[in-house]
């Protein structure tokens, strides 16, 4: 059974600080996704990481993937209040019917950024 673990699950940080969220997964996968979810809202796609060593950046967020270590990181640089949300990593798996893949999600990291 595929397991996806995120840590920390809760994070409170001050504006201007840097921090990293970690996502470990238990089986071979070459595709990893990061989503953002605001309270009461749906999931917004942030990054799709397709291969070992992939690094993507958007604004103050940077995501990386190490498939050998089965680890992805989401790094936040100089955090601002608007980045407060829950961040999920998700790993792609092949389902029994084949074709497009489903996602197994971590429990999410609840991030609060205080002024």
């Amino acid at each position, binding site marked *: 059974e595929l397991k*996806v673990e995120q840590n920390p699950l809760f994070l409170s940080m001050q504006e201007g600080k840097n921090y990293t969220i970690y996502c470990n997964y238990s089986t071979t996968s070459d595709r990893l996704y990061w989503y953002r979810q605001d309270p009461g809202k749906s999931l917004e796609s942030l990054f799709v990481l397709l291969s070992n060593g992939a690094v993507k950046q958007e604004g103050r967020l940077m995501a990386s993937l190490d498939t050998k270590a089965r680890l992805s990181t989401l790094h936040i640089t100089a955090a601002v209040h608007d980045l407060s949300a829950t961040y*999920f990593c998700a790993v792609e798996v092949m389902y*029994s019917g084949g074709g497009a893949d489903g996602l197994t999600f971590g429990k999410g990291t609840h991030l609060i950024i205080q002024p």
Partner: protein
Amino acid sequence: GAGVSQSPRYKVAKRGQDVALRCDPISGHVSLFWYQQALGQGPEFLTYFQNEAQLDKSGLPSDRFFAERPEGSVSTLKIQRTQQEDSAVYLCASSLWVEGQETQYFGPGTRLLVL
């Protein structure tokens, strides 16, 4: 429309009542997924369609859950004889392969509360 839409957005049901949740995927998206998200948790896979074919339903928690996509577009998730443990947000996502890459786009979800 521009994105995945779901209806109703909120549903309160009495225990034992049947409910039907609708998903309108992004036009042209072949794949459609249903997920269940309990409070404070990450989404969990329920079932997956490729066009009208239900290729995987291994995540459906019981035989009270049934999903269909008869014309390969709109999908309905039906829950019979609802129980309190069915209370959750039900998310629908659709996706399309483009240049070897696929991203699942999520709808706003239906919040189901079973009393």
